[in-house]
């Protein structure tokens, strides 16, 4: 654990954040484990098309619901498609959704939060709006949005991003509010520095460390939520395999071949576990105050 907490009274550098993250990584084996597993998963998923696997979409009606064999390492699903190939390819969508949601929610939330934190007029309106958005349970909102827009990967990403934005906005806003009255900010205002410049140069860097931590958790949650959406039939289109929709399609067959749920479930759980342990390590290193936020 790093004992170098960020003091909000001095504007910190993003580079410094990375340095302490790197430091933590060297000293924290679980965090390193998370990162290694995550990298491995990304390699397996995005490398899948180049490993010479069976076509993940190819149906073989005569080879349905098979147990693992030499030809099909993890067996086949109800259409005789190769599960191994599907599970590896499926990681692409799941990771893509996870990373995109984390990135988009952080970026959008950061922008809104900075502005809301600095302008009292905007703040009143925006925060009411965010409170309302937060009072709709995230997964319900996402399901409703996908039902509305139709199932496609971009729609799923957007539908999972929207419920996350308010949480980021709150986080950023709280940092901004804390810094707004600090001397170095007041001094910058007094010296005639433009608001935009103050936000970008002095305030934003301080929001980055907690945001990175928050982003890893959002990424983990988005991977799981993508699976939930697919499971209830409002996810990514079944033609492109994702961990979620492989499991969703296999659920009627879980007595015949539990592997259709178990293998993608295992890959997903390992990935999310890795992201979470990585996130926990980051949090300890970057933002000890966040420990209380779970």
């Amino acid at each position, binding site marked *: 654990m790093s004992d170098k907490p960020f003091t909000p009274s001095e504007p910190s550098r993003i580079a410094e954040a990375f340095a302490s993250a790197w430091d933590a990584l060297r000293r924290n084996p679980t965090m390193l484990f998370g990162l290694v597993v995550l990298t491995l998963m990304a390699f397996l998923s995005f490398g899948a098309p180049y490993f010479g696997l069976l076509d993940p979409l190819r149906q073989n009606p005569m080879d349905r619901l098979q147990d693992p064999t030499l030809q099909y390492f993890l067996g086949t699903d109800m259409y005789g498609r190769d599960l191994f190939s599907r599970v590896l390819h499926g990681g692409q969508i799941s990771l893509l959704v996870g990373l995109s949601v984390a990135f988009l929610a952080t970026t959008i939330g950061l922008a809104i939060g900075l502005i809301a934190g600095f302008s009292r007029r905007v703040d009143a309106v925006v925060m*009411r*709006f965010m*409170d*309302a*958005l937060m*009072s*709709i*349970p*995230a*997964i*319900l*909102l996402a*399901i*409703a*949005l*996908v*039902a*509305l*827009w*139709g199932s496609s990967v971009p729609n799923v990403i957007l539908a999972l991003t929207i419920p996350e934005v308010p949480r980021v906005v709150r986080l950023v806003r709280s940092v901004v509010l804390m810094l707004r009255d600090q001397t170095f900010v007041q001094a910058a205002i007094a010296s005639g520095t433009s608001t935009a410049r103050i936000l970008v140069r002095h305030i934003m860097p301080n929001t980055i460390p907690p945001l990175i931590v928050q982003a890893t958790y959002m990424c*983990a*949650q988005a991977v*799981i*939520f993508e*699976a*939930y959406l697919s*499971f*209830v*039939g*409002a996810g990514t289109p079944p033609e492109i395999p994702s961990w979620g929709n492989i*499991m969703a399609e296999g*659920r009627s067959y*879980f*007595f015949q071949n*539990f592997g259709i*749920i*178990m293998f993608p*479930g295992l890959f*997903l*759980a*390992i990935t*999310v*576990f890795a992201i*979470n*342990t990585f996130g*926990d390590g980051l949090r300890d290193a970057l933002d000890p105050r966040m*420990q*209380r936020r*779970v």
Partner: protein
Amino acid sequence: MYAYVIRRLLATIPIMGLVAVFVFLLLHMSPGDPAAIIAGDNATEENLEQIRALLGLNDPLHIQFLRWLERLLQGDMGVSIYSGLPVERLIWQRVEPTLLLTLMTMIIAITLAIPLGVLAAWKVGTWVDRLVMTVAVLGFSVPVFVLGYTLVLGGSIGLGWFPVQGYTPIRESFTGFLLHITLPALTLGLVYMALIARMTRATMLEVLNEDYVRTAYAKGLATRKVLIKHALKNAMVPITTTIGLGLALIIGGVVVTETVFSIPGLGRLTVDAVLRTDYPVIQGVILVFSLTYVLLNLLIDLSYVFFDPRIRY
């Protein structure tokens, strides 16, 4: 204090109003023509026109919203496109299983999570702590339905202890109810448990460093007494807040769990409505869930006034 309670209650009104606006816009931003969705298969252009006129779909959006809101406030949530039944009736039919499943889940999760969290904080840095925390992170990492199906395979098919699916109303048979609700409640409870256990540990760690706890130790009080009477009692406020906020997780999980275990509750109603793009039902369910969520959290907030003497308004 009453002024505070009233102020807090009033503050939920604009929030629920905004939620209503979102929910209203859901249907009206949909890509399809609501009239065509309602009319079904063989609708002619005249049918569609009739329906649009009847539902007022030709009016400006804000007029439609006000009309919808007016009916909503009178308890009229519209009519399901799919079955033609009033939405409030469909929701009412499904309340019992979801309510009881949620309650059972909370009971199981809280009774397990708080002792685990306290234990981890007390034994911080040891293998006990690490084990509890690893299980907690796992709880966040395993999708609810994977756990659900694993429990079905083990508990229902392997051991034969529990029925595989379905729901028995508590009035019909209490034993039947318990047997049916146990696996779903366990399934749903894991994430919630993970959340509460982590929060308990984190708060306890903080509290254990406070002076008064050290003093209590120094006075030679028994560890158990210090942990529970001094530390946990003071840690309860943030833990209770987490219990309230974590309800969102349960509500999300209900949707999936009820599907796995074929429980005819609000979650299944939501999923069915989504699959059939039955917008009035989707709107109704979201409103009910959000309102419940907001009110429960408000109740929890207000309860601090009574439970924690240090909090004064």
